[in-house]
């Protein structure tokens, strides 16, 4: 029997991309996606179920569908995407309910994959140049996102300890840049002015969005347990990234940085969430030796990721945003999945 996979946050960027990737995997029998709103990408066979963001109905779904794998992509790693209260609900309460459902006595779940972020390491002057998975952060977590992610990883650790038979994979990704994803960093780099803390030129690491999906697929397919860092190899100074992207640097004062940035953020000139401030001072590097040993290799280096991002930005500037070519319509989707009139390619070959 093939795999039965549950994906959280099907309506979000990562959930949608992950579902699309798994659809082409013949070993996956069934894909079930949960989301608070309708999926925004076309899906062939993934089923969609609407649920509130804290998954209070999850244990019923798990029992009813007998899923054996949960891919938890619905973690907010960008504080501009959700107000503080929602961030806590999604990350902390959501994960808690998810793991509670997965850890029931007669649970069918055999693997849990969590998409975490290198934000859990923080950014401070006392940091090593590369964090290994077991290196502890050197400064207390001050931002909401970091605190909630640390809490999430704590739950996952406890879950792994309580359920030794379940494969638990946690992947900490570096900052993502890519063709489609929009993050505070990508918006800053695609504007004409880009914030920079005067006097600091930190080294940053990026990972390409396709590599993120490929990596999640890799650990899911091969059932690889453990905690892994994933980033494109190499590091770039922030000023060089900005120069490569052709944006000019807007220096913020090294003291009272947030105070000076606040009006500019308000005017929409820059994005400056709290978790970006540390990064723009001290940068962050993560050591990816461990994931490499499992046979995974990022397709893009950090410099390659930036280059790919620039090319996509240039293309978007020329052709503009493509109009949405897909909207989810319940009846149509039901027809394609259920009706006997539809000839499925897999049936046709049998």
């Amino acid at each position, binding site marked *: 029997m093939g795999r039965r996979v549950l994906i959280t946050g099907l309506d979000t960027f990562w959930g949608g991309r992950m579902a699309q990737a798994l659809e082409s995997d013949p070993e996956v029998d069934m894909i079930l996606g949960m989301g608070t709103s309708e999926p925004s*990408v076309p899906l062939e066979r993934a089923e969609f179920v609407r649920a509130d963001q804290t998954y209070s109905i999850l244990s019923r779904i798990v029992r009813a569908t007998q899923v054996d794998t949960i891919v938890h992509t619905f973690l907010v790693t960008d504080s501009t995407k959700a107000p503080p209260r929602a961030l806590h609900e999604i990350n902390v309460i959501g994960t808690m309910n998810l793991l509670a459902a997965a850890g029931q006595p007669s649970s069918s779940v055999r693997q849990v994959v969590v998409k975490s972020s290198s934000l859990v390491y923080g950014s401070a*002057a*006392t*940091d*090593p*140049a*590369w*964090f*290994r998975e077991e*290196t502890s952060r*050197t400064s207390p977590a001050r931002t909401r996102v970091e605190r909630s992610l640390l809490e999430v990883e704590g739950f996952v650790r406890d879950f792994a300890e309580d359920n030794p038979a379940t494969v638990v994979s946690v992947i900490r990704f570096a900052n993502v840049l890519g*063709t*489609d994803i929009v993050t505070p960093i990508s918006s800053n780099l695609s504007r004409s002015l880009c914030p920079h*803390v*005067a*006097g*600091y*030129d930190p*080294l940053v690491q990026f990972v*390409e969005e*396709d590599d993120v999906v490929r990596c999640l697929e890799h650990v899911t397919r091969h059932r690889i347990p453990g905690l892994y860092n994933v980033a494109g190899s*190499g*590091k*770039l*100074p922030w000023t*060089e990234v900005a*120069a*490569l992207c052709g944006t000019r640097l807007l220096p913020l004062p*090294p003291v009272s940085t947030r105070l000076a940035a606040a009006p500019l953020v308000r005017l929409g000139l820059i994005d400056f969430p709290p978790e970006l401030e540390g990064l723009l001072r*001290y940068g962050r*590097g993560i050591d990816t030796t461990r994931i490499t040993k499992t046979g995974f290799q990022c*397709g*893009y*280096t950090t*410099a*390659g990721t*930036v*280059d*790919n991002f620039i*090319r*996509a930005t240039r*293309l*978007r500037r020329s052709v503009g*945003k*493509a*109009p*949405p*070519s*897909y909207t989810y319509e319940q009846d149509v989707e039901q027809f394609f999945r259920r009706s006997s009139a539809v000839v499925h390619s897999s049936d046709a070959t049998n």
Partner: protein
Amino acid sequence: MPLPRPAEPSATSPRLSDVDEWGRSEHMREVARRVYDPLYRHWFRVEWEGLEKIPRTGGALLVANHAGAIPSDAPVIMHGIEAELGRPVYGLADYFFRQAPWMGTMWARVGGVPAHPDNALRILRDQGDLCLVFPEGTKGPSKTYTDRYRLRRFGRGGFVEIAMRAGVPVIPIAVVGAEESMPILFRLPSVARALGVPYVPVTANMLAFGPAGLLLYFPAKFKLRVLDPVSFDVPSGQERYSKSRVMDEAEKIRMNLQETLYDMLRARRSVWFG
């Protein structure tokens, strides 16, 4: 909506600077070497003894005594070994440097690395390079002139543990001259607290040269002696080592360095001419 994406990552990913993964820039280092070399040769007139004890290949942890309000020994050792042996030296220093705007960036570009056990381990074991640490930390350079050439406590012996873990020898280097290049008369602890820096010294240089004395060293004659490498017959790669063994080894190295310093001072005729 997704943009069409290229089939392959483009082969060329252009760089605009030569800053490497440690934040070092070979170009900036070259400039710094050019600027510093006359100071090294004609101002401090550095003389080495036992330079052949530093291996030509493989990692080694260099430890030295630390002195001078703005320590002049770190650049002397780093530049000396890079110039004489052609091997890069990674100088580990307090994270305070990294915090200071502009200075922190400059410091990283010319080769400074924040002191963290992981960084040292990577340099020594994975890269097989030379790494310089001052086990006294800021207690060394912050001591006043009356305490000159008296080694402070060697931290918690962390440097020995790192060398054990990396499986590399510790090579102690005794430095004479740094103490007199910028002697501290007294410190201003309350100003240091207010500024959030480890110490604020009032140096003899400030009295002699006025504001220029903030950066201008006295032309003390530098003499450096490399001591015999110390190896530990313990398996490398362990998470922890016996604390008593670590402290013993650290203390042995400290005593040896202290004895050597006294020895060198006994032979010294003049602070300025050696």
